[in-house]
């Protein structure tokens, strides 16, 4: 469950974040929703470590193997006999391997990025379209109805324009 408060500006939003932390909500359960990227720590602190790069590496390795198998395998299965030339030529095999490595590394990056972001979401999550117009959203993950009400009250006291669950 999630409670989302929408604020007019950064000042009121940060007041809400401080209020939530003071009343016992762990900082890692609080996040900001903004339509422009703010430097880390201005509104909330976020873990900067990511793992999606490994998806890019995995994609690259998969692409390299596929590219090599495609070009070298083709040459091996359908040999073109040319005097004094290798059946599996280095140049074309290298090019096809390189291109497929890059292609799958790019695809791995995109897929990994979406997986790490958790989008598209499996279920509906609270959101306010006013965030696109410059308002700041503060969202907190809650475990119970009591916490939800408490979070809502803190955000209202800090100056929230609206509260959504």
């Amino acid at each position: 469950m999630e409670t989302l408060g929408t604020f007019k500006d950064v000042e009121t939003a940060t007041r809400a974040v401080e209020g939530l932390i003071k009343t016992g909500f762990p900082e890692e359960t609080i996040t900001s929703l903004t339509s422009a990227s703010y430097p880390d720590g201005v509104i909330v602190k976020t873990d900067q470590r990511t793992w999606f790069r490994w998806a890019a590496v995995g994609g690259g390795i998969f692409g390299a193997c596929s590219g090599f198998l495609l070009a070298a395998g083709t040459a091996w299965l359908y040999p073109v006999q040319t005097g004094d030339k290798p059946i599996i030529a280095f140049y074309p095999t290298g090019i096809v391997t390189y291109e497929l490595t890059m292609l799958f590394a790019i695809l791995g990056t995109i897929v990994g990025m979406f997986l790490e972001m958790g989008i598209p979401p499996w279920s509906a999550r609270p959101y306010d379209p006013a965030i696109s117009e410059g308002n700041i959203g503060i969202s907190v993950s809650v475990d119970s109805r009591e916490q939800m009400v408490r979070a809502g009250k803190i955000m209202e006291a800090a100056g929230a324009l609206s509260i959504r669950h």
Partner: protein
Amino acid sequence: MSEHTLAAKSAGQLNDEMLSSMRPPTWRWYGLAFFLGAVVAWGISAFTYQMMTDLSVTGLDRPVMWGIYIANFVFWVGLSHSGTMVSAILRLSQANWRRPILRAAEAMTVFSITVAGLFPVIHLGRNWVVYFFLPYPNQRGLWPNFRSPLLWDATAITTYIIGSSLFLYLGMLPDLAVVRDRAAGWRKKIYAVLAMGWRGTAREWVVFRQASTLMAALIIPVAVSVHSIVAWDFAVTVIPGWHSTIFPPYFVIGAITSGVAAVITLMIIIRRVFHLEEYLTPLHFDNMGKLLLVICLLWSYAYFVEVQTTWYAHEPIEWEVWSFMSGKYTPLLILMLIGNSVLPIAGLCFKKVRRSVKAMLVITLLVNVGMFIERYLIIVPSLSHKNMPFVWGTYSPSWVELSVTAAAFAGFTLMYVLFAKFFPMVAVTDVRELGVRHTDISLGRAKVHSLTEEK
């Protein structure tokens, strides 16, 4: 637009201004789209006529079997080069002035590589068997031969089309969410799907920034490889004038020249049409002008090296090709040298010229005219005068080829016009980020602008 002005405007106001291209179309827009569509339709009919008849309706004949179609292919691949590359380099170097330019550049890449990819297919004698290119099990026992440079092209262009489309989409993701939140009805549903449920959480922004940087780093080597491979189409042959080690870097430099010039031309058009004067300022033209100046100097150096080596060695057949080209195509050669070298180098040295929108429009258009000529002069003279004098010949494009060429330019413009109506032409959230990161701080006796960067 300065960071100061950005900070002074509300987010809603900035959204309104930067999304102005997506307002309901006017009759002028419909007129332009109809005209471009008509030119494309004319080109398609010419191509259909070619397909129904045969290649005899083109100017192609022995010994010149690569003509304006392949010149088009090389030109459009070159044009596609810089969009993504400029955007990627500016992203990696965190140049803040890049922000309003990115989208125009990235979209240009996707559309020009799409047009480029059509030309090898158009050029085929039997276009309907183009699927023979695809490696899939079949009863005919056919399998693509990867020793052919054309297969390298097909592989590289596929990678580049997919990579640059994803690069464009990735950069647009937060903007699509803004458009989704402002749209209504069926449009809202479509943008909601495209925005993939983006909400702009702090975590999403962290991953997004890192993914943008990684994609930029991955796309640059792909861009370089694509044009190097196109150069190898020529350089790995033994045709005089083509068999040259400098071709891949020379092609890459030419591609960047052409692409940077096209990005500037598009910036000028977008600025004027969508009234984005506050976002695409003289500073942007000044910086892009400096970049173009450096690239034109490099191109001139590469061209000089290529010509002086041929001249000094005076190898008979190489010299014959050069003499034939400079003799038969003198006006085109002079126009190319003026457009790609003399005019940009002489003009762009001056700040006043770089900051003049009109001067930049003239220079950048001439650069691309010069670049198209350069592609033509690389292909046709070498094939006209190959090693055996008894098969020397000439080539001039037929109305069919010229119609298809006109359709390519119209098709590219049409795709751009449609894109501008349905997607943000300026990276809205990227530009707005400058505003939220800007602050004035006191330093000694003065107040100075300060911009927060990530650690």
